[in-house]
């Protein structure tokens, strides 16, 4: 009964989405206020229907209803309650339902918080969001219905993939999806602007917070995924340039470019067509990511058993939305007249440079990710493109990006000179150089990590210099500067903090460049040494968990004759899934991680792998700081309070 209810709510949401597409778009075209006004309640209704549908699915998971195919395939009665709940979106059908639910949530948010939008623009944005919903709801109902029944019901389910039974899974996909779907909103704004044929500062003011929110969530989602891989998979790495990781990086990169160019639209009314194009591509990349993950065309560690028919459907959706958007773009883009003019050396120029470099990195990652697919389809070659390619090709592009991101914020709008900026950054340059030399000496002359540390110092220093400059720290003294700091717009704080976060991240990456690992078969009582610590295996014993059994090692980490840590990595065995998982043990003091993994056992010896990872936590700390900066910028006064009314075309402002 509950399953049928959920299915019904899903179908109802599809009908509401149809109405949400047709009525407001027609209304905006015919300037019918009543039709336009229908958009907001329809968006709200669609959200409620989908929320009900999702609640039904969650209920089915919690009570472990084995007459529902999706539950049978992905759940089991012995699973802890938390993972029964998170298991709702730990599979294709459920995660897709979550995707459309978040999309509907964004639509509802536009209709609630967008009251001060011009009614035609709001109607068109809601209409385009409705159209996106229609596509994905059709996809869900047609190929991936989570409420399908099975007869006769088996006694129990097949269990959730044990590797997904982790709190990381509870958070990673929803954050990522909010990011992906956030770009659906900027896409809808871009399409609405193309239909209306105008983009102005007010449009930029509405688009920027959405792109900022999407970016902050995507940043947090990617970082969480990377952290999860680090502690759950037990390979000791944090990023593998795996196609599915790249699929989330592509919209993030374009989103980064969009975030910056939207500022130019808002402040200077320039780069309009470019920003529209970025908004379209950002959503295209989000769809591409969904396609890559769900179709299984690429060989990836994330690949779950998938269905080519679904891939084809998503590909069709991707083509439909993108082709439509590009045709509209080609037809209407000339209507966007730039009004702000700027010199090449200026804040705008720096942002153009940022966009250029970020888009080049995107192009590199895109080609590297999709090449195996094309090589197979066109030439029948089975090739793969691994981390060495991505490192080699993106590093030379990241270097100028980091150089420029320090200089850009210190430049004035419209026209700038390079020399005064260089003068204000000389102490930062000295700092970076000192960082380079120190890192070189401390690491035993490892050049690449030292370059990384130099850039980390450079970027963080420049963010501080930016704040010092804005508060006038060196001109008016500490007390006055402190008072001024409170008055700075939060967007300025947000930007400086996010940039500093990039520096922290760079330091973490550089630190991981100096990581060591060691692997050995040890009998209890035996030890090995790594990075100034002695690691002694004390014992290996059996442990019983709720739905698994495990072999757990106890390792004493000894420094200068004293036990400083006791680590207990384990290897779990899940009988339902007939699968092992690795439970890593990590001890961190924020400056370094000690990381231990237990492998197979044989002849009374256990294979123990240990890692010494300098500055590893800084990677996720940096990403968290970046997301925080985005959030702070989102809380800026001009986002919260004022969305100024548009000056009608031709009217003279009083």
């Amino acid at each position, binding site marked *: 009964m509950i399953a049928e209810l959920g299915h019904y709510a899903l179908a109802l949401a599809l009908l509401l989405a149809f109405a949400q597409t047709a009525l407001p778009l027609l209304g905006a075209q015919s300037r019918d206020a009543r039709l336009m006004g229908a958009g907001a309640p329809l968006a709200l209704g669609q959200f409620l229907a989908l929320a009900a549908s999702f609640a039904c699915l969650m209920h089915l998971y919690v009570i472990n209803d084995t007459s529902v195919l999706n539950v049978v395939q992905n759940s089991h009665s012995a699973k802890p309650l938390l993972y029964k709940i998170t298991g709702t979106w730990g599979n294709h059908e459920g995660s897709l339902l979550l995707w459309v639910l978040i999309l509907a949530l964004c639509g509802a948010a536009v209709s609630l918080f967008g009251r001060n939008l011009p009614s035609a623009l709001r109607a068109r944005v809601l209409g385009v969001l409705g159209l996106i919903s229609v596509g994905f709801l059709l996809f869900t109902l047609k190929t991936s219905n989570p409420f399908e029944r099975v007869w006769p019901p088996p006694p129990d389910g097949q269990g959730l993939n044990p590797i997904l039974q982790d709190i990381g899974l509870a958070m990673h996909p929803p954050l990522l999806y909010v990011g992906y779907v956030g770009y659906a909103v900027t896409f809808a704004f871009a399409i609405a602007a193309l239909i209306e044929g105008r983009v102005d500062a007010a449009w930029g003011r509405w688009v920027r917070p959405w792109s900022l929110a999407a970016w902050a969530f995507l940043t947090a989602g990617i970082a969480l995924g990377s952290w999860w891989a680090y502690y759950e998979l037990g390979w000791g790495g944090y990023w593998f340039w795996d196609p599915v990781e790249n699929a989330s990086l592509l919209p993030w990169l374009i989103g980064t470019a969009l975030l910056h160019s939207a500022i130019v639209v808002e402040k200077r009314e320039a780069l309009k067509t470019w920003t529209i194009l970025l908004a379209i591509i950002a959503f295209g990349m989000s769809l591409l990511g969904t396609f890559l993950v769900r179709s299984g065309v690429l060989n990836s560690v994330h690949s779950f058993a998938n269905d080519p028919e679904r891939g084809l459907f998503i590909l069709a959706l991707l083509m439909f939305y993108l082709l439509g958007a590009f045709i509209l773009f080609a037809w209407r883009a000339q209507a966007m007249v730039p009004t702000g003019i700027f010199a090449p050396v200026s804040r705008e120029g720096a942002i153009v440079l940022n966009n250029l470099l970020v888009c080049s990195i995107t192009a590199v990652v895109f080609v590297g990710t999709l*090449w195996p697919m094309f090589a197979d389809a066109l030439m029948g070659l089975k090739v*793969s493109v*691994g981390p060495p390619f991505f490192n080699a090709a993106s590093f030379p592009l990241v270097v100028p990006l980091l150089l420029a991101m320090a200089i850009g914020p210190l430049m004035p709008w419209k026209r700038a000179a390079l020399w005064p900026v260089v003068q204000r950054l000389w102490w930062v340059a000295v700092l970076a150089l000192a960082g380079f030399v120190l890192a070189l000496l401390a690491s035993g002359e490892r050049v690449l990590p030292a370059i990384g540390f130099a850039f980390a110092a450079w970027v963080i220093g420049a963010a501080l210099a930016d704040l010092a400059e804005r508060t006038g720290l060196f001109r008016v003294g500490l007390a006055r500067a402190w008072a001024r700091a409170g008055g700075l717009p939060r967007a300025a704080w947000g930007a400086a903090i996010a940039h500093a976060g990039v520096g922290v991240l760079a330091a973490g990456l550089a630190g991981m460049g100096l990581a060591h690992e060691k692997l050995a078969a040890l009998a209890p009582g035996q030890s090995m040494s790594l990075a100034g610590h002695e690691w002694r295996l004390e014992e290996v014993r059996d442990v019983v968990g709720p739905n698994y059994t495990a072999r757990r090692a106890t390792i004493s980490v000894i420094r200068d004759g004293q036990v400083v840590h006791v680590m207990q990595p384990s290897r779990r065995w899940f009988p339902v899934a007939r699968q092992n998982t690795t439970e890593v043990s990590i001890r961190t003091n924020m400056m370094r991680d000690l990381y231990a993994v237990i492998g197979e056992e044989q002849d009374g010896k256990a294979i123990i792998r240990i890692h010494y990872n300098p500055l590893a936590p800084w990677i996720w700390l940096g990403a968290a700081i970046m997301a925080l900066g985005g959030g702070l910028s989102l809380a800026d006064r001009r986002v919260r309070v004022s969305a100024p009314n548009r000056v009608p075309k031709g009217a003279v402002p009083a």
Partner: protein
Amino acid sequence: MKVSSLSSRKRRRMWILLLCAIGLGSATALTLTAFEDNLVFFRSPSDIVAERPGGERAFRLGGLVEAGSVERESVPAGQRPLVRFRVTDGANAIAVTYQGVLPDLFREGQGVVTLGRLTPEGTFRATEVLARHDETYMPPEVADALKRAGHWQPEQGAAPAPATWNTLEPRSATPGGPRS
């Protein structure tokens, strides 16, 4: 002086175009040079037997882990453990050595993809054994290798039981045949 009479908008546009050209050009150049060194080819055991590739370049070897072939060498304490196994596509099999912790989903009878080099003796020395998240997942290259060796039609059902791989007769590859 034609140049100085260009309007500032035109000049700005030229600047942007120039920058775009530089950016795109450098991205292309970087991609191409990095491609040359870093493309990793996939080979099935039969490909290796047919091509006899040299040992200078790393490549990926994929297939099924032959039933009963996994041997863990007994090593003195404190040393890196060594695992030997054979990767087969039904027609040919290649001996593989690996020093390290096998991924959680490594099992006899399952699809596997390894990265490494061929030694002059013809063993494959793997530096990476790739893990999967999902037990029922078959890496596409491995599925393809099995299909080429005539052993498995994915649409006809699950992969054949591991114990039978060395005795399987190549089947005629007609779609829609009886389910195995």
